[in-house]
């Protein structure tokens, strides 16, 4: 099988899996006072320190969660509630138009249920947010903004955003700035303190750790109303018994991913560049989407004019090649991607897109396998598009 869908989830690193299994054999609730509890707590706190150390955070800023979705919900809803409670004039939430649904739908929910006003930052054709747009918004509505959320890197087209610039604008106005760095950690350098962000989302299963565990890095002075109430763990912001083996394995993976990032990035972007060149040579009218420079090393995203991304996916899957249309599903029906639409693509181009993402296990042989199958699949998918033409 050629697995070209690492942005969906990437295999666990062997050292992370080993750490998971070792910790899972032990007993102890990190909140318990006895020896077993103390031992578990030690594992959790060491993990917190390891993560903080490699991501430029203080240990107390690491809040363990169940993953990216929960961290994004907490950073948007939780910070919104806290900021509005502190000053009822604040009722606006800012996010880029190309956020993951975990942010997008949280903001929509705030608009629908909490009468929040959503401000969507537009992107250019390469999917980049223009800091000037944020500056203008802050000028106009600075006093009313609760939280600003812009992803570090896009999960579909791989565009990396000018986070430091955006965070600086927010910091100057005293508005909390959250960044969803789920796709970025381990792929590009990510340093929480240096970025100037107030909150940062990271998840285990995109960087070689287990699924179902992640963290929100949350500045000490950033208030967030808890979404989960209970035992008061994690600064009282996120209740729930800590998943010791998950946290341990997550920390091992974060540390490994960050430490190997430079070599990883060089190797994988080489592979990716080879893939892109070969796709363009084989299918000259393929459109390479996203930013050619500010881009995740493992991401290659194309539109294949005249094809349905769905059909390509089916045809490649049948030949053992796993990739993604990158778009969200409702009832399994692919909707045109909001990311491509925000980039100005028409519905046909959005629907004809396919995402290949590489990761730490990727090899040249997988790209060879893709290239053996893709041209035929594109040709076939083009023919299949004719089915849409209504007949009398």
């Amino acid at each position, binding site marked *: 099988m050629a697995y070209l869908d690492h942005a969906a989830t990437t295999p666990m690193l062997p050292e992370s899996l080993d750490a998971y299994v070792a910790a899972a054999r032990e007993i102890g609730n990190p909140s318990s006072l006895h020896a077993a509890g103390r031992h578990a707590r030690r594992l959790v706190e060491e993990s917190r320190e390891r993560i903080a150390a490699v991501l430029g955070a203080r240990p107390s800023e690491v809040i363990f969660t169940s993953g990216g979705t929960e961290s994004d919900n907490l950073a948007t809803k939780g910070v919104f509630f806290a900021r509005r409670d502190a000053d009822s004039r604040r009722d606006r939430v800012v996010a880029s138009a190309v956020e993951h649904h975990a942010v997008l739908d949280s903001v929509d929910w705030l608009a629908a249920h909490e009468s929040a006003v959503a401000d969507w930052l537009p992107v250019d054709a390469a999917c980049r947010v223009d800091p000037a747009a944020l500056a203008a918004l802050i000028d106009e509505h600075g006093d009313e903004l609760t939280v600003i959320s812009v992803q570090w890197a896009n999960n579909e087209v791989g565009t990396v955003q000018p986070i430091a610039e955006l965070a600086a604008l927010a910091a100057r106005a005293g508005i909390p700035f959250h960044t969803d760095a789920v796709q970025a950690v381990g792929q590009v350098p990510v340093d929480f303190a240096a970025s100037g962000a107030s909150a940062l989302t990271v998840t285990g299963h995109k960087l070689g750790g287990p699924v179902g565990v992640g963290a929100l890095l949350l500045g000490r002075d950033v208030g967030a109303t808890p979404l989960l109430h209970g035992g008061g763990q994690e600064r009282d912001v996120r209740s729930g018994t800590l998943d010791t083996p998950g946290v341990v394995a997550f920390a091992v993976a974060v540390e490994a991913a960050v430490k190997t990032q430079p070599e990883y990035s060089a190797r994988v972007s080489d592979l990716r560049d080879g893939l892109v060149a070969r796709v363009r040579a084989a299918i000259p009218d393929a459109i390479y989407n996203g930013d050619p420079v500010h881009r995740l090393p493992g991401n290659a995203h194309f539109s294949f004019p005249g094809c349905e991304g769905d059909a390509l996916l089916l*045809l490649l899957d049948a030949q053992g090649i796993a990739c993604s249309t990158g778009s969200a599903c409702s009832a399994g029906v692919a909707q045109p991607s909001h990311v491509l639409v925000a980039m100005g693509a028409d519905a046909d181009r959005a629907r004809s897109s396919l995402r290949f993402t590489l990761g730490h296990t990727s090899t040249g042989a997988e790209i060879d396998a893709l290239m053996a199958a893709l041209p035929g699949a594109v040709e076939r998918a083009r023919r299949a598009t004719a089915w849409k033409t209504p007949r009398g």
Partner: protein
Amino acid sequence: MSGGVDSAVAAARAREAGHDVTGVHLALSRNPQTFRTGARGCCTLEDSRDARRAADVIGIPFYVWDMAEQFHESVVDDFVSEYAAGRTPNPCLRCNEKIKFEAVLDRAIALGFDAVVTGHHARLGADGLLRRSVDIAKDQSYVLAVLTREKLDRAMFPLGDSTKTQVREEAAARGLAVADKPDSHDICFIADGDTKGFLAGRLGESPGDIVDGRTGTVLGQHDGAYAYTIGQRKGLDLRVPAPDGKPRYVLSITPVTNTVTVGPREDLAVDTVTADRPIWHGSSTPVECEVQLRAHGEVVTADVTVDSDGLTARLHSPARGVAAGQAIVAYRPDPAGDIVLGSATITAGSRAAETVAAETVAAGV
């Protein structure tokens, strides 16, 4: 794969027969919440999940294909305009003709597949003949008879040799959780089963007369002729009782004058049925065979002629409730399953020399 038991078992059998099978669920609603919810319908999120789960158990790839636009144009809009024209359409038949064995088949062929397998209860064996299922009560050959030779050659119906009970047992034995799912009934795109309300919402109210077919007397009013079907007795709400006190039935619907004509049961009887758009697999006509005039309707012996004008059936015994827009399907009785000779869309039924529903035809076009 609708998410029901039949298509799940059909997929499993096709796979077991050595075919390279891919499961496809059709998303037919523009808004998945608006179609029937729960286990009975065919187009809900829950059904899509059930279908996916069945595909996983069988071990085949599974995809959802969005056919909402085509379904709307070819089936839902057609359903409404047929009623508006005074005819009684069969949307399941239309869906087989235009969606499953046209839109889906065309796309599948283009993607490199050879055939469309469905869980219909009908037999299609090596001889290429379409026959009734062994389970007469569940037989669906009536709604498949519209398929041309070309389409039948690309179709597989693996369930025709089994009864519904056997299919359910097999589903349970295969560990398919859909084994106990209730059968779907009614029309999948009318969420609450209220066809009249659905049509009223699309066509608006359009009051007109209910007329006595023998005397021409106006007996009452209706809110829209589309709400009536030929042979209907209930819900006429007539103030004036019939002179003989017997119930009255809808005999015909005339959109041009917006009238519904009613009369006694005996006036419903027709002995000649004409139909257009014939699909004929049988040999030369006239031929004596059996005809079925409605889904799950009675079967009567007839002499059937097919020519360039369409199909004409002279019934050996009169039939009632013959509605324009329904299919007439001709069968040749056979011990190995009655064989479909062909089908056509009913335009009119008539009795002796007198035309009963011909005005429906004239008005409809």
